[in-house]
């Protein structure tokens, strides 16, 4: 194998495994046929084209199966990541509940909705208890302070009980729909776990964008990137699954703003407006793409 072929094979990993199994050799054949004599490195425009082509092929491959159900699975994945992220700084004080939340996320990623349901119900009940100042289910000493590494307020110490309750209710409801429909959900990528450090300790109720802390900027950037990605995927495929996920996730996000509206800064309102605008775009784009086949 030449150095050029080895590099092209590495670049072709941008494509999904099924696509590679069918067409990797064909693409490689053409790539090597178009190369100049003695060429060892792929030209930059080809690198870019292969990376973009690989991402597009992955998005198209993801748009398989019933859009609504897969959209709900995406929703429960995002909400499970966010809810575990909020609990992580308190792992030393409430290890059992953080572990249950982590198990719920693993069950969701593996597509085991029946397994995730009781875990989410138990964690949700505990969290709602904390927000009401009640040590439900065990004798947790309230308020729950973060571990020493973290500079964060007490668990759900800011904001009211309504937004966290809505967030867990939405998650539980979506999980129940997925569980009772009978068919197994697909497995989600382990790459979702990489989002955990980015959202760790970021309770949306004390997300103070006006202060411009690194955690708030990271979270806003992540939200905007995910929603822009949802809009792009909907544009490419005309498929609504990403719009469904974006729309349902907006419910708990809006509940946070509605519950804490008196404390919201101008930047906080602008953040909410950005989320609504990007979600509306993600929701509208698939219908426009369906009307006009993109060639």
């Amino acid at each position, binding site marked *: 194998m030449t150095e050029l072929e080895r590099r092209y094979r590495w670049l072709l990993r941008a494509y999904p495994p099924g696509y590679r199994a069918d067409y990797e050799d064909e693409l490689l054949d053409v790539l090597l046929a178009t190369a100049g004599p003695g060429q060892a490195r792929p030209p930059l425009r080809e690198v870019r*084209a292969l990376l973009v*082509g690989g991402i597009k092929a992955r998005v198209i491959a993801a748009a398989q199966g019933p859009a609504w159900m897969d959209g709900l699975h995406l929703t429960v994945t995002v909400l499970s990541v966010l809810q575990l992220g909020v609990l992580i700084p308190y792992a030393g004080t409430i290890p059992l509940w953080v572990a249950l939340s982590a198990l719920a996320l693993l069950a969701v990623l593996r597509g085991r909705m029946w397994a995730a349901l009781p875990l989410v119900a138990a964690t949700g009940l505990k969290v709602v208890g904390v927000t009401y100042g009640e040590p439900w289910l065990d004798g947790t000493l309230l308020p729950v302070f973060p571990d020493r590494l973290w500079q964060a307020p007490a668990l759900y110490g800011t904001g009211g009980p309504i937004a966290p309750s809505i967030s867990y209710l939405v998650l539980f409801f979506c999980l129940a729909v997925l569980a009772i429909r009978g068919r197994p959900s697909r497995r989600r990528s382990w790459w979702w776990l990489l989002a955990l450090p980015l959202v760790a300790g970021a309770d949306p109720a004390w997300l103070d964008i006006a202060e411009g802390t690194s955690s708030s900027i990271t979270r806003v950037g992540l939200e905007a990137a995910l929603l822009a990605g949802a809009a792009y995927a909907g544009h490419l495929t005309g498929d609504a699954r990403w719009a469904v996920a974006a729309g349902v996730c907006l419910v708990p996000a809006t509940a946070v703003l509605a519950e804490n509206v008196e404390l919201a800064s101008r930047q906080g309102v602008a953040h909410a407006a950005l989320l609504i605008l990007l979600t509306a775009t993600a929701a509208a784009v698939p219908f426009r793409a369906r009307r006009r086949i993109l060639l």
Partner: protein
Amino acid sequence: MSRGSSGLSEQTYFVLAALLDGPLHGHAIIKRVVDLSQGRITLAVGTLYGALDRLAANGVIVVEREEVVNGRKRRYFRISDEGGQLVRAEAERMQQAASVVTRRALGATFG
């Protein structure tokens, strides 16, 4: 890249034009597009196969046959009737658009 009213990009237009004379495989399409565009358009392989997948998914082209050359699979693509109509309609649209300017230039020369 600008798109005509049919939604065809210039690159896609030339890919379809390349297939009007008969089925071609990927590398032959790239070479034919270079010839037809007088060297102006050189398709990257990643771009070409993205376009071919999209066109095949929409029934504008079809896979005519597969061959194995040097142990590697090679697909030959053929333009469908729908694809032929699409690219001809785009050609007529561009011809009409070009005539808006060229008629004026001719009028200035002879008038």
